[in-house]
């Protein structure tokens, strides 16, 4: 065949318009990729931020020195009488610690000239004398012996070891001097000062503004646990009961429509409005104590209820009508059908929804702020049920509280607390996913 020239309107030659359209297609696809990339970058930045700022809170610098618990200071009468031992306050123990520190420094050959008494005392945390006192009161036989203790170092010293405090910033800082930091270097080289894993972060109660090194999440975790127990005990039964009624028994009339619209709206109401409700009704009218887990639990129950109702209804709807028909066919009543046949089959979905609702409730802060949970709580609440009425804190509220304090050591602890909170949420979400995978049936 002769050479046929490609005609003008052939598919083998793209014209300008087609090229434009293809370019538009590529651009559109690129927008989608860029959008997803931005979301992933934002998530990555968030996670990196959290981990880099928060992991430092899990380690704390401590000083290891031998302390002579001299009887002449701690137990003048020599009788080991608990009441007499209690009379020795932390001031006495602080003197013992300072003496021990001076002796340990001298033993390692570290020069301390140029450092005043207050500067030496400032190397150790103000919480440390209380630590030693608790140890001695628990075990009075230690009096008279020399024990090797590991006490928290001062907040600024800890900041120096973590890089927050530098020699330049120490010159402008009223709480630490460059000489103390140089002493810290020497102590580190000699093995007296080191960073250890800080289990107290998870178990100790909150501490005052001057002692960030001793602040911990113990009370907050317990308070959050109590509130989750109350939410589980109240929201799950009420939510499931309401869903069963709305899904299976309610007649299709205006009242039921109203209830359904109501629940959909409640799910979208801002959480702070629930806080206002809690303040106005539970605290002002019912007179429940402020900052108590019971009030927080009740407010969070009201918030979680719409979520649980919506997810339970979806699970109940997913059970095929043939199950219901079969049960009715063998002579069961409507109530027996629901409770003996439909509910057990919908149970995995209901539990998954409940766990996700709980996870959402765990992270809520705004309503708890309004019911007075910003209180600084030093004592652990008692065991339930009395403990529900004792003042307590909650994890997200503790995070907020710590961000409001001036010391950057507290900001680091806030990031660390965020890691703890996210760890709990991760566990709950993984449990929900595993539950769903293991037990869900596809009809």
């Amino acid at each position, binding site marked *: 065949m002769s050479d046929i020239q490609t005609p003008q309107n052939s598919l083998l030659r793209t014209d300008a318009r087609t090229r434009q359209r293809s370019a*538009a*297609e590529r*651009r*559109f*696809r690129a*927008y*989608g*990729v860029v*959008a*997803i990339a931005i*979301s*992933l970058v*934002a*998530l990555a930045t*968030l996670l990196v*931020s*959290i981990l880099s700022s928060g992991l430092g809170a899990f380690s704390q610098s401590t000083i290891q020195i031998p302390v002579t618990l001299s009887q002449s200071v701690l137990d003048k009468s020599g009788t080991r009488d608990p009441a007499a031992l209690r009379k020795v306050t932390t001031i006495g123990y602080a003197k013992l610690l300072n003496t021990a520190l001076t002796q340990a420094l001298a033993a390692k050959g570290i020069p301390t000239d140029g450092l005043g008494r207050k500067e030496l005392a400032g190397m150790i945390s103000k919480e440390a004398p209380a630590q030693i006192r608790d140890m001695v009161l628990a075990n009075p036989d230690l009096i008279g012996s020399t024990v090797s203790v590991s006490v928290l170092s001062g907040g600024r010293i800890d900041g120096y070891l973590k890089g927050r405090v530098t020699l330049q910033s120490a010159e402008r800082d009223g709480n630490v001097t460059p000489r103390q930091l140089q002493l810290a270097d020497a102590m580190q080289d000699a093995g007296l000062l080191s960073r250890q894993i800080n289990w107290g972060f998870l178990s100790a109660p909150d501490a005052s503004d001057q002692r960030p090194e001793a602040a911990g999440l113990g009370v907050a975790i317990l308070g959050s646990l109590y509130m989750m127990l109350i939410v589980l005990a109240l929201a799950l039964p009420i939510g499931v*009961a*309401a869903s069963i009624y*709305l899904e299976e028994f309610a007649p299709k009339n205006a009242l039921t429509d*109203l*209830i359904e619209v*109501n*629940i*959909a*709206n409640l799910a*979208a*109401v*801002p*959480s*702070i*409005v629930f806080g*206002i*409700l809690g303040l*106005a*009704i539970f605290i002002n009218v019912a007179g429940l104590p402020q900052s108590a887990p019971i009030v927080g639990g009740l407010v969070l129950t009201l918030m979680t*209820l719409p979520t649980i109702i919506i997810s339970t209804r979806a699970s109940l709807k997913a059970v095929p009508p043939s199950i219901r028909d079969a049960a009715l066919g063998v002579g069961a*009543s*409507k*109530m027996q059908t629901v409770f003996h046949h439909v509910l057990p089959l919908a149970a995995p979905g209901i539990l998954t929804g409940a766990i996700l609702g709980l*996870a959402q409730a*765990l*992270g*809520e*802060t*705004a309503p708890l*702020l*309004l019911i*007075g949970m*910003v209180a600084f709580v030093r004592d652990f609440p008692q065991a339930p*049920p009395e403990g529900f009425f004792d003042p307590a804190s909650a994890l*997200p509220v503790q995070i*907020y509280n710590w*961000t409001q304090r001036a010391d950057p050591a507290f900001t680091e602890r806030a*990031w660390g607390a*965020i890691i703890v*909170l*996210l760890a709990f*949420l991760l566990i709950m*979400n993984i449990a929900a996913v595993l539950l769903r995978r293991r037990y869900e049936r596809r009809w």
Partner: protein
Amino acid sequence: MPVLWTTALILTLAALGFVMGRARALSLLGSDGSKLHSLPAYHGWSVALATLLPALAALWLWALVQPSLLERQMLHQIGSAAVVEPADAPLMVADIRRVATGLDVLARNGLMAARDIAQIDSTTTDLRGLFAANGVALGSDVPPHILSAAQSYRATEQSAAGIRTALVLALAVIGFGLGLRRVDSQFRARNSVERVVLGLLVLASGIAIATTVGIILSMLVETRSFFQLYDWKAFFFSPDWSPQFHGGSDLGILPLLWGTLYISVIALIVAVPIGLFAAIYLSEYATRRMRATLKPVIEVLAGIPTIVYGLFALATVGPMLRDYFAQPLGLGTSSASVMTAGLVMGIMLIPFVSSLSDDVVSQVPQAMRDGSLALGATKSETIRQVIVPAALPGIVGAVLLAASRAIGETMIVVLGAGAAAKLSLNPFEAMTTITVKIVSQLTGDSDFAAPETLVAFALGLTLFCITLGLNVIALFVVRRYRERYE
């Protein structure tokens, strides 16, 4: 007897009723199993419920009503001895309660015999010191009329507790007896138990309505008292927000409303394009594996609590924006700004918009896509000209719901946007929102009945109405304009 013990006793009685009812029904079964109308377990449940429900209901009603009745009696008694201002009444009641608690502590620790407690004379005994030594703190010394009111409060409370226990236990026993007597072969136990259970289910659904009613009522009542103290025109139209501790504050909502809307607009500008494009890419272009991995990862952004975003805004995004954008451009020196809060809130809303849009886009039937592609359109032209217009009502609904979420958000703006109420166009300045002021006015130190504190309820009601309006409009738009295919 304390409430907990009474409840435990009633529960035990109910359990006993279940066992006995069931046993009695079983004994009536006879040789063939068809003599009973209902299964024995239902007879047991009918006895248990007859014991439990009237008694528990009476117990809870009593516990609800008792405090206000006692309070009224206390105030009546005080009113005959001294003049009481209406504003002082709650404080007096609290004082009386605390003194009564102190007397209880004295009696419980065995420090004074009951007879001596009844005869304490507050002018001769240092009650305040005595209480303080036992862990009960009083603000001032105890005047005689408060002491006598506290003593009669204690006496009335004890006798009320006694009557309550007796009444409730009597109800339980009567219920037990009547329930047990009912058990015979003709009794329709299953029907009666199912009726009661249905009633309980209806009650549970009622709690949802009760919550909404509670929200609206609680805010309405306090808002009414606020508008009695402060002019409503000044609240809604004044451009100044400056609460003063000593009164004479300017409490105008306009700067707060402006801050809220500005931050929400920025958040939507960030979230809607990214969320929409991400949803479209994941549902139209991505392979199944890519979608299965990426969708959950984006959902992770939705599961992170807002306090984490708040701290992220405060500690990371704020200083970054200030150092790289605001200061070089000379637009502001604050790390807390509208831009910070808006940006972080937008990031939080991305999965919200994305998952809602994904749902609507996947509901558009495949036939429309196929038809458009068959006519020669490229994929992006199909999406732009066929799918998005078809899904538009749902997308608009999603945007409105995201806007409602952004307006009601608290922690991100508390930590990221600052507390200065101003009307300004500069996005790098700190501006505050309605939610921040609700938190600050209700957690501050001012007196609860002052307009500075009550304004928080008015703000809350406004916020509730705005978000409710947006949700209703979203629902309406979706319902009215949604195309129904087949």
